[in-house]
């Protein structure tokens, strides 16, 4: 068991290191902006005092190195800075009721997690069952139809699927609302109802991916000699699947789930914009458009962290489920 703990610790350390380097990449990318940062934020009409205030506030007079470490230090203490939009508002209108980026992001992050959660609850069981069926009945009409459908669904842009769903489930047959105006203090049922269409859109994309990957993993497995051996021992088909295929399929299936949850992170951006869902993806896109650097940086880091964590989780799960590593020689 010593070796497996060591491997997992190594992976964890590697994940942390990657996250650190990613934060560096994001920082460098943002600071590669030419010209005067403060001028960019406030626009041409800003007073020199306001510009100076922002420069000091952002620490733009310090060198890159110091700035990176103070940014990183702030990050670790949960201080993600203050959005330019907020600052701009404050400098033009006065007042000091600034909301930090962290506070700005938190509710939206929760909303996005809710959306991702609903999607996962629908998509994961559905796609694994469908993938298993496709693998069991491979090369039949069912398998071919599933192949064509999933391939089409993967190939289509998320907004196409989203509008098709809006068309059929919101406009032509008003089953779900097409706008997901979610707010705090909403009842769960209501919230679920409004989240349904974006969740279904994401489900379509993710299920297709997951199902194809599950199918491939299972087929790969069913071709292995020990499955043939089990059949030749006269074991019933059900037992072959449950007892011989599943324990070995666990690692690939967990991998598939984690990879697709990670994929959700990217998909969520477009879908949130289509349905005007108040999640972190929409905040990100809005901030990109107005070049609100602190928010962009923070969102980017959150997305990357979630992505890295999920991949790490997949990695560790597959290590844990490998009998060769669990029972070393």
């Amino acid at each position, binding site marked *: 068991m010593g070796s497996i703990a060591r491997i997992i610790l190594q992976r964890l350390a590697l994940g942390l290191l990657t996250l650190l380097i990613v934060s560096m990449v994001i920082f460098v990318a943002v600071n590669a902006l030419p010209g005067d940062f403060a001028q960019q934020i406030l626009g041409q009409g800003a007073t020199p005092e306001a510009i100076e205030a922002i420069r000091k506030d952002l620490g733009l007079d310090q060198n890159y190195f110091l700035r990176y470490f103070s940014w990183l230090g702030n990050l670790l203490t949960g201080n993600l800075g203050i959005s330019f939009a907020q600052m701009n508002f404050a400098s033009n209108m006065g007042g000091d009721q600034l909301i930090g980026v962290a506070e700005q992001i938190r509710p939206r992050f929760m909303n996005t997690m809710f959306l991702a959660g609903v999607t996962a609850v629908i998509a994961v069981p559905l796609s694994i069952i469908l993938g298993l069926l496709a693998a069991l009945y491979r090369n039949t009409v069912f398998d071919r139809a599933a192949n064509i459908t999933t391939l089409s669904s993967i190939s289509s*842009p998320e907004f196409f699927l989203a509008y098709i769903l809006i068309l059929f489930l919101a406009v032509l047959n008003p089953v779900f609302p097409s706008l997901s105006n979610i707010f705090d203090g909403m009842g769960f049922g209501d919230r679920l109802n409004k989240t349904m269409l974006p969740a279904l859109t994401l489900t379509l994309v993710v299920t297709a991916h997951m199902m194809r990957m599950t199918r491939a993993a299972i087929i790969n497995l069913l071709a292995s000699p020990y499955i043939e051996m089990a059949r030749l021992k006269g074991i019933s088909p059900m037992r072959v699947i449950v007892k011989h295929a599943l324990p070995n399929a666990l690692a690939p299936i967990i991998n598939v789930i984690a990879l697709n949850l990670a994929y959700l992170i990217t998909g969520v951006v477009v879908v949130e914009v289509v349905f005007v869902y108040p999640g972190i993806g929409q905040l990100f896109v809005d901030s990109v458009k107005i070049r609100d650097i602190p928010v962009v940086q923070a969102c980017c880091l959150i997305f*990357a962290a979630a992505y890295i964590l999920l991949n790490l989780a997949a990695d560790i799960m597959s290590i844990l489920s490998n009998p060769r590593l669990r029972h070393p020689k």
Partner: protein
Amino acid sequence: MSLLTILAISLIGCLCAAWVFRFSGQVLSDQKPFFRDMPYGVAFGYVLGVAVLAWIIVTYIGAKIAGFPAANKLYFFVKAVEWFVIFAVAAVLFRILGRNLGTAGMRKLFRSMPLTASFGILIIILYAIVSIFAGWIAPYGQEQVFAQANIPPGGDPSTGGNPQFPMGTDQIGRDIYSRLIYGAQNTVGIAFATTCLAFFIGGTFGFLAATLGGWLDQIVSRTVDVLMAIPALIFALLLMTIATVWANNFGIDRTIFMVVIIAVIDATRVYRLARAVGQNIVVMDYIEAAKLRGEGLMYLIFREILPNATAPLLAEFGLRFCFVFLTIASLSFLGVGIQPPLADWGTMVKDLSQFINFAQFAPNVASAPLLAAGAIALLTVAVNFVVDWMLHKSSGLKE
């Protein structure tokens, strides 16, 4: 709730029908192995398939007979069925054509081709023609603004249409039909160029890393690992934020930045594949023989490795193209991609999207944004069908 009840009843109906189907099959066919060894799931699949097909046909005929309000509601369903049939027939015809024309090698290729792949090839050819000859095909220029804005499509004056603009005009009076055609040129062309650039960068580094190994491989691979730890679309959006500032400051077109950014992000994926494919080939004995002969690096890469890597690279090119194409479309849809006045499908979807809400009253108006989005989907589906076939073929050869 009634919807759920209907679903539940039809499901139970299908389950019963499946049992009856299998049982009667067994009795009637005198226990032929086909029915005797048929799993219940398979029987259920057959019944379900027949039920869905029947439902589609009945609804379609119903829609054709129905009057105004109901017909509107089923307009998109009818169109979808019709287009599906048209595409299927076109693909069949195309495959028959391919099986009887051209060189012997091509005929052989078409003979083993599934319908999906021939459909894909047909669509790719059509898109290539449209995007290359967009200037000749389109009736108007992509930036040409007409006096009449927001003309609904259909070209029927009684519903406010104009036969000069069969698909109507957009909110500032540009011909949608022409912009759709130019969209092919811009969106497909830019995506193609980006993919080529990504392949050039990723392929070069990938093969060098595979052949040379050592520190070059380590440095590039670790860099790629870090770049790939940031989700592609998120990274692209981040870099586009910065690129817009650069573009404003230096007066360079933002689209060029986008091409470079997406190419670099995508090159990381190409690098991974090229390196993996290269490494599989590098361990072959014929590479060892060439090395021991004293061959140089260029000979090894271009004469020994590359010819054996074409099949997986070509398939990857298709997949990468789809990915790039979708990323660009997404960026444009989000408003930071291809910039106006260039016509492009992602932006068109965004601009026309609110028309979907008119679907119940004027279905042809609502179809404009769907057409643009559908144009994107159709090409990526087509490419994916072809790639799927290629991958299947190459994996089949190995067994």
